[in-house]
């Protein structure tokens, strides 16, 4: 169990020592700059800085409760929904702060889509699920909606399975199909970044493999950030990996390098399965 192992660990390092250089990323899509976050009085994120590369898959790994989901939810400001959250530091999206009060979160969330840990299709038909985003953003013509739904479902590799039952309830789909439907739903509003919060944790290996294939296909067109506690998944699909531990960014770098040659002891312990 991770909890008992964590207790036996020595006190965590306060900050990554200089031996763990960040990768140099040219034209990052998202820049996290000295970000700290509190839930009430409990600090969940400690002074995190990292750059997310464009049209790549970046994975956040780490044990449960390390803050990787919290960090992910900062990117589309979903943490705003929780009253007690307080944030310091900044996040820039394509050069502009997303933290500023005048930022239109609805517009931001349209550009930065999200797929959740547990598939959450709306209790509507498959078609209406995918058409939901375009509809709220003002698409009215049936032909446009038809096109968008088909394109999104094709991108999510779901079209062939559901094209004959678009009017059926989305809740009749299998778990893996539901998750791909959620991806299609996120794609339908044409985002630039897609956040995936442990998208495969509730799925069987076959369904997981399909989602992973899909992610690799999608990275030509989108920037993907995936939170996972499955290290094989991170090593299989991602280009860059960030290891978070107890709210701190321990190490960040190219995935191959992190998994083959981690600079930090904690990273090595985690990826070799000594804890976590």
């Amino acid at each position, binding site marked *: 169990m991770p909890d008992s192992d964590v207790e036996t660990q020595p006190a965590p390092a306060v900050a990554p020592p200089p031996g763990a250089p960040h990768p140099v990323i040219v034209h990052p899509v998202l820049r996290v700059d000295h970000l700290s976050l509190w839930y009430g009085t409990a600090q969940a994120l400690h002074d995190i800085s990292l750059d997310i590369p464009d049209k790549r898959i970046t994975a956040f790994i780490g044990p449960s409760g390390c803050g990787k989901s919290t960090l992910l939810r900062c990117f589309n400001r979903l943490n705003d929904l929780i009253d007690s959250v307080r944030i310091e530091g900044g996040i820039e999206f394509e050069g502009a702060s997303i933290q500023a009060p005048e930022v239109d979160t609805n517009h931001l969330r349209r550009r930065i889509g999200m797929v*959740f840990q*547990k598939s959450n299709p*709306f209790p509507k038909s498959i078609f209406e699920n995918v058409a939901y985003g375009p509809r709220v953003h003002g698409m009215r013509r049936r032909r446009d909606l038809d096109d968008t739904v088909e394109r999104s479902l094709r991108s999510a590799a779901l079209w062939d399975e559901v094209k004959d039952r678009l009017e059926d309830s989305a809740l009749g789909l299998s778990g893996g199909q539901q998750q791909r439907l959620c991806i299609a739903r996120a794609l339908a509003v044409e985002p630039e970044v897609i956040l995936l919060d442990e998208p495969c944790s509730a799925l069987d290996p076959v369904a997981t493999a399909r989602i992973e294939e899909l992610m690799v296909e999608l990275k030509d067109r989108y920037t993907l950030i995936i939170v996972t506690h499955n290290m094989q998944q991170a090593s299989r699909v991602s280009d860059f990996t960030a290891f978070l531990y107890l709210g701190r960014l321990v190490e960040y770098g190219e995935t191959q390098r992190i998994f083959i040659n981690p600079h930090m002891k904690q990273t090595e312990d985690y990826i070799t399965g000594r804890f976590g």
Partner: protein
Amino acid sequence: MTVRSRSSAPRDLLGQSLTWLCGGALALNLLLILGLLALIAVQGLGFFWQKDLLLLTLTDGTRVFAEIHEREVRPAAAGGPRLRLKTGNRDLTGLDFRWVEESAIAGRERPRDAVLLERLEWGNFHGRAVELRHDGEVRATGAGVWEAFGPVHEAGLRLRRRVERLERGDIGTVNMEIERLRLERRRIEMGGADPARRAARLSEVAAREAAAQERFAVLAGRLATERREMERDVLVMEAADGQRKEVAAGQIVTALRPNTLSVGERAWLYLTRTWTFVSGDPRESNTEGGIFPAIFGTVMMVFIMSFAVAPLGIIAALYLREYAHQGPLVRLVRIAVNNLAGVPSIVFGVFGLGFFVYLVGGTIDRMFYAEALPTPTFGTGGILWASLTLALLTVPVVIVATEEGLAAVPRIMREGSLALGATKLETTWRVVLPAAAPGILTGLILAMARAAGEVAPLMIVGMVKLAPQLPIDTTAPFLHLERKFMHLGFHIYDVGFQSPNVEATKPLVFATALLLIVTVTLMNLVAIALRNHLRRRYASSVV
């Protein structure tokens, strides 16, 4: 292990006896409900079955045509068993029911020529048909009367339908027009237009009034002719004691010889009577005829109530659950809302009278119906105010159910919508509310059931013993929300306990109660079907 098994024996026993106790309590509840339903069903449904019309000879020599309605077994010391007889002929004897001791009956016969007449007035007549007259001259006597009466009866029924159409349709329309013109005249008189124009308009209205009056006179003349026509054919009846009574053909609703009827004919009679009861208008201060206006009033009131309570309750619950900051104040409001459900309903009635009827209704009257004053239009009880009063009464039920429905919508569903860039309003409207719809409908079903059975508050905000017109009819504006209405619950009270002829109406009370239960059940079934349809559509995840 041994310790546990030794000590578990008495504890198992306790657990088992508790299970039996709980099961027993449930069984008792079910038994009580089933018993109640069975009692109402048997008493109410038996009413329409045509019994034999017996010719009874009593020990004191009197003879009487009677249906036996009830046999009460009493100990010999108290006089032995006695029978409740329906003897009819209220106009001759003053009563149509009487109790007779079984021992006082010397003879029973089932004469095939015994005739039962159901009349528009004075209730049933039991006797023999002895003569048929037309304009005073005898057309048939003795055995030929019944055969000759058949076509006369048919013609009488047709005539009566024509008269009813005339009264309700044409004359009703003219009457309403006369009233409208009167109000228009008042409005012109009260208005501030210059005198010349006012005079011109007044004379125009006066001309239209005169025309309407003329039309009314013509129609009234026609009605009088038809009425006289109804009196031309007369059936002379003879009661068991030899008294004679002339009954105009137009007064006879049904005429039959009960002792000649086969089971099939009785079954047909049973169905037509049930249908008349459900679809007809009441007569004889509600003791006879049908109860259609009461059914209509009940259903329509519940309908209007639902339309008022659903938006009010849902919006209030939405604010409480989705928007309000969850603090002590909201908790306090929630407790208050729950307590509101426990306020005695008559208090809501008094509030409805003071607020809706006098304040709102009075204001509407002063602003829009000033010409009709001092006769109130909305400033008196009516179906709208009654429905709104009940909406207030049932709104806590809807709020509580809606809140529970909203709370059951998973957070991840809302986040899914927000993460697509939908606003909170869009999320609530398009995702949360549809997902909570089954729960909301459950609340609405409970509210409807409560409203349909409520009587006390309605007695002071618009429910009446006899409403001459339905709240919906064919004269513009078709929907008359200011009208008073009849209600099944009040009908039960009125017929059962306020009627001058309690014996006659006892079965009606049961039949009406049964119908109220059936009506409420039907309305609930419709709502449940709707909810299940929504559930299927928004079926929650199988996980």
